[in-house]
């Protein structure tokens, strides 16, 4: 780009539009700062790389040979392993206590699926060859359906499960 002087001399920008340009930048920066705060200070993060696996052999050995809930610290910390297959989740019913920190590990043995737990920020792609991971806490007891959110074939619409959160 040429020097700012020649730019300003030759490029006529209406003062109102100049103000708009500044406003636009401020608004976009406000959004960027907001997502940064939520992501890096308030603990709302997107999934990151976890582990590569072989979708064809993954269920030959633990933990994926027995998907389900693992209690790490009773009432406080749990891990949940879920396998997405056409057209169901293994397991399709999960029970967890309210207030505990729960980490979901999900993978697929066939095509791409999605995994989204209603009323939570747990919502990610499930891709064969990859393990998706997010951690959340269910504060309120109740039923939280989890559904497949990526088209996986003719039975896609009936692919779901449910987390029951007990007090």
């Amino acid at each position: 780009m040429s020097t700012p002087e020649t730019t300003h001399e030759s490029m006529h920008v209406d003062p109102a539009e100049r103000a708009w340009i500044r406003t636009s930048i401020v608004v976009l920066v406000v959004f960027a700062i907001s997502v940064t705060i939520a992501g890096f200070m308030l603990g709302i993060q997107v999934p990151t790389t976890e582990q590569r696996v072989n979708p064809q052999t993954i269920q030959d050995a633990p933990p994926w040979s027995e998907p389900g809930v693992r209690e790490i610290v009773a009432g406080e910390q749990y891990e949940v392993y879920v396998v997405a297959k056409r057209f169901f989740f293994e397991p399709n019913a999960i029970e967890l206590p309210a207030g505990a920190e729960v980490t979901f590990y999900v993978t697929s043995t066939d095509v791409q699926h999605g995994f989204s737990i209603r009323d939570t920020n747990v919502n990610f792609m499930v891709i064969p060859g990859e393990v998706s991971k997010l951690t959340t806490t269910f504060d309120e007891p109740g039923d939280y359906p989890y559904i497949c959110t990526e088209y996986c074939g003719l039975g896609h619409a009936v692919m779901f499960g449910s987390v029951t959160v007990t007090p």
Partner: protein
Amino acid sequence: MATEADNDSEVQEEFKPRGTVAFAAAFVVVLLLMWFSIYIIMLSRGTTI
């Protein structure tokens, strides 16, 4: 209407986009309201780490 610019000899019709400024200002308000309403939904749905 601003008439002070009329004494400017050359400019017979200086166009000032007042309506556009108003439109853009309204847009920014709507943008901020809608964006932050979704941001708040995100905050209400709990942490992921």
